């Protein structure tokens, strides 16, 4: 396909080849780096991950995180306790930092579980119209009818209360969303000519879906991921109200929100700081998600 090397006019060829050599990944990273928002998001997430990993080094779990001291109960934010202390006299600042690992873990892992199942089912439903689509979509409607709290009660009681089971419970309740989003995206991509062309080349259906159809539906999926992370972290607070959250006394932001609930008027800082932590985490994931989505989507590229 490439033209015979032309002596004259060679510099144009060199010029136009500039785009060929850069690999797809470098272009994506290049665009990502350009997007300031995505960089801010990435920076916050790396800080959070670092804090989560080294929390054990920073704080000693038993004394500073779980150790309670009633005499230090409900102190307003001051020098020693930046965020004040909670109703059992524990320092909120340390608990919020330490809690990063739980909320980040639960939020991210639950969304990944939901995405893994949801995207696969959604892709199949979207690609193979007809019976497969009807079955999967109807099962999906059935699954989405189960209230998330009931799902939490059953999973936690059947498998015991642990952080992983909490992730499983929240993950499963976010599957229907992913199935619907992926199906809609795959449906619109499936009719494109290039999918027929690929079929014509005899490529197996699985490969077509995995390497050509899904990558083109990444945009709505990434948006859904970032949204689900937010609702996953918030869901832990309603689940921990019923005792289904991360086992006490772990300082998970959702459960801290829930514990501070009856102090909204008297000691609002009990809920404000975990709330802000959740807001920052959710924003970071979304700025990164947006940046990634725009970098990946050729249509939107300048």
């Amino acid at each position, binding site marked *: 396909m490439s033209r015979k090397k*032309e002596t*004259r*006019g060679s510099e*144009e060829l060199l*010029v*136009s080849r500039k785009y060929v050599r850069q690999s797809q990944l470098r272009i994506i990273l290049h665009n990502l780096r*350009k997007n300031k928002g995505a960089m801010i998001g990435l920076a916050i997430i790396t800080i959070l991950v670092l804090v989560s990993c080294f929390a054990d080094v920073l704080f000693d779990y038993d004394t500073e995180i779980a150790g309670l001291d009633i005499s230090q109960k409900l102190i307003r934010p001051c020098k020693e306790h930046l965020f004040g202390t909670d109703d059992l006299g524990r320092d909120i600042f340390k608990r919020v930092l330490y809690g990063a690992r739980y909320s980040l873990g639960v939020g991210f892992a639950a969304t990944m579980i939901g995405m893994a199942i949801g995207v696969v089912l959604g892709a199949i439903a979207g690609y193979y119209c007809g019976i497969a689509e009807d079955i999967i979509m109807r099962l999906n409607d059935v699954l989405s009818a189960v209230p998330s709290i009931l799902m939490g009660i059953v999973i936690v009681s059947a498998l015991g209360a642990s952080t992983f089971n909490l992730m499983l419970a929240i993950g499963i309740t976010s599957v229907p969303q992913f199935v619907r989003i992926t199906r809609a995206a795959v449906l619109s991509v499936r009719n494109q000519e290039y999918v027929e062309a690929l079929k014509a080349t005899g490529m197996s259906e699985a490969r077509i879906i995995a390497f050509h159809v899904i990558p083109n539906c990444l945009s709505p999926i990434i948006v859904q991921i970032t949204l689900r992370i937010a609702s996953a972290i918030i869901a832990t607070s309603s689940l921990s109200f019923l005792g289904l959250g991360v086992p006490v006394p772990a300082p998970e932001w959702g459960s801290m929100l829930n514990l501070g609930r009856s102090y909204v008027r008297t000691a609002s800082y009990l809920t404000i700081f975990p709330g802000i932590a959740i807001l920052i985490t959710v924003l970071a994931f979304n700025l990164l998600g947006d940046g990634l989505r725009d970098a990946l989507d050729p249509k939107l590229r*300048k």
Partner: protein
Amino acid sequence: MEEKRNSGMPEEEIALELKNLRVKFVLEQETVHAVNGIDIKLRKGHTLGLAGETGAGKTTTALSLLRLVPHPGKVECDKLEVAGKDVLSMSQKELQKFRGSDLAMIFQDPMTSLNPVFTVGQQIADTIMLHNPTTKEDAFKQAEKMLELVGIPAVRAVEYPHQFSGGMKQRVVIAIALACNPGVLIADEPTTALDVTIQAQVLAMMKKLRDERGMSMIMITHDLGIIADVCDEVAIMYAGRIVEYGTLRDVFNHTKHPYTEGLFNSLPNIRNREERLKPIPGLMPDPSKLPKGCAFAPRCQYATEACREKRPEERMVSDTHMVACTAYDDPDFRIHRPEKGGKNG
């Protein structure tokens, strides 16, 4: 609209005048110079053909006339007058009144140029309501009349774009453009997306409407056949500049510019089957890194050192024929393509 046509003033002779149009798109890594200084003078009732390969800046020129160049394009122009109005100084309000009534445009791809969720009749009536507001029913009736004019049965006015074929859609686009009887019509490769038979019908219909209404028109295309069929004058564009401009006879029979010669050589000659095609070597230059001197020099068989250094000025070889090529500094320079039918042939 009536009184403008028959006033004898010489200016009225000029339907559209454009002086030194320059358009560049400023991106992060590079700046794309799409149009590098274009002058157009379109006389009333005449049709100017704007020819050139893709990427020569034809569509950008057309959009600049309507001041519709999308972000991040930067338009600079010394003068732009249409039907005696200075378009450059127009406010947004005035521009909106101007577009569609004084100057209208037809786009290349009919498949995507019509709003999918409104009926065809509605879209035409909408234009009418914009410029000469009347009752809804009346506007719809006028729309139906327009459809008849472009050869579509009025009864289909209530149908949606997806129920029309490519050719029919282009007729609707034309109907929309002509709904308010514009003085000047710009057609940006109106038939490129259509197959040949439909192409001939659409062109015939456009010519008939143009002659009936005495409309002046700019026909943008890369197909020299269409230019020969429809246009009175021709402008050959290359890398954002007009390299040759003149009447049909000037450019077709007394070709001066090597690039124009190259274009003609790329056309198969029906009469002489054995003749070998001589395509122009190389590709259009990268608009962000235009070479010094003549942009065509790297691909021009007659290119001299001077061509690569100096930017060619525009030279009048007859009162109606202009060429921008440094080679003509040497008076007896000739291109291989023979002249046909002497001076006035």
